[in-house]
């Protein structure tokens, strides 16, 4: 159980980074941390104690496999995370080009 | 020429990785090697006909033993310097000039120097190596050049030039 709570704590660390940091890059890192914590969580859901990797191969007769579904889901979510991070970084670079700073306090044309 | 060389090398690596000689595997391996050769052939090593001269492989084996021997010697030397209570070290950076002409030869020489304990190649600019040395024994360029490079240079020259 404690391991799940630690995982959730990692999620909260990422959320803290997103909420309280002022640097664009640090915000992106915060989002990445949240994503990894969730990936970790998914992998732990699928784990069954004392079982082997879910690969069917000749000559080996395993009784227990870990749940392969969360791993497949995580592969998908890693791809999505990659795309999100790339897009965020691209926008951050463009923002830096326009404003000359990474500080979000100085990037505030939009108000109201 | 470059492309064919790369193709053959990649094919050998492929068979080492998969370690099976069924027909589908051979076909797939050829395809993979072909793609790799097309993509990376342009930027592969320049003078690739040297790969087909068996003498060079003999010298590589000789060089391997030489290198291991030098390495063991240097290991004991550094161990002595570390353990001895007086700490007889005299570190410094020396500039040595190499007689090797090819870039690949220089690369291997620099890596060999780095891998021997006690010496590290800091930078390579044209023909000059800047080497950090744990005990700079002499200030005469001839002596220290011979001491650092001499043991490897003649073999590398036979391998790469």
């Amino acid at each position, binding site marked *: 159980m404690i391991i799940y709570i630690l995982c959730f704590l990692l999620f909260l660390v990422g959320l803290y980074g997103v909420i309280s940091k002022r640097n664009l890059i640090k915000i992106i890192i915060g989002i990445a941390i949240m994503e990894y914590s969730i990936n970790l969580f998914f992998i732990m859901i699928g784990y069954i104690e004392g079982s082997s990797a879910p*690969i069917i191969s000749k000559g080996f007769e395993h009784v227990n496999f870990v749940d392969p579904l969360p791993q497949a889901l995580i592969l998908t979510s890693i791809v999505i995370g990659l795309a999100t991070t790339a897009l965020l970084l691209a926008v951050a670079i463009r923002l830096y080009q326009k404003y000359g700073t990474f500080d979000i306090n100085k990037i505030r044309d939009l108000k109201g | 020429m470059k492309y064919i060389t*790369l193709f053959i090398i990649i094919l050998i690596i492929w068979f080492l990785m998969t370690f099976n000689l069924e027909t589908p595997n051979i076909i797939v391996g050829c395809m993979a090697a072909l793609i790799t050769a097309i993509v990376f052939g342009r930027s592969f090593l320049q003078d690739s006909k040297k790969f087909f001269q068996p003498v060079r492989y003999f010298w590589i084996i000789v060089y391997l033993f030489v290198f291991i021997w030098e390495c063991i010697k240097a290991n004991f030397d550094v161990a002595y310097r570390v353990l001895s209570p007086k700490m007889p070290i005299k570190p410094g950076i020396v500039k040595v000039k190499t007689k090797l002409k090819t870039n690949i030869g*220089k690369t291997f020489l620099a890596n060999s120097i780095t891998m021997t304990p006690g010496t590290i190649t800091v930078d390579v600019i044209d023909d000059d190596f800047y080497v950090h040395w744990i005990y700079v024994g002499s200030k005469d360029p001839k002596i220290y050049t011979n001491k650092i490079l001499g043991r490897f240079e003649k073999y590398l020259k036979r391998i790469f030039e």
Partner: protein
Amino acid sequence: MKGMTLIVKKITQIICPIIFVFGIYIIIHGHLTPGGGFAGGVIMAGAFILQILANGNILPALRKEEEGLEFLESSAILGFLIIAGLGLLFSGSVVFFANFLNKGQLGKLISAGFIPIENIVIGAEVCAAIAAIFIALVVYKDEESK
């Protein structure tokens, strides 16, 4: 001299094809061992990225390469969709993503129906996409410094 030192460049020249072929190996054996399209594609893209990092950025060449990669990426996804759509035609019942090819024997290289083919297509797509993303970020950054 642009890019990194001589040593890095030479070692990159030697090691890049090997990284690339290792990526291909992972893609081809995706249905037999862990790995597959995505993992292999990332490794293949790694070879490209390593080369760009070692040789420094020559902007016009990179732009050209980016266009080529984008083209490869779009075609690969289209290929994936077409292979999936072929199931609509060849599977007897009209089913999207139907595995209509012969399943073959367990553990052989040619088996598992169309999964290896899809793996290859995904590998090409991921490789092109990641390399294109990297190049795009490099290009943006370079535009900024001018």
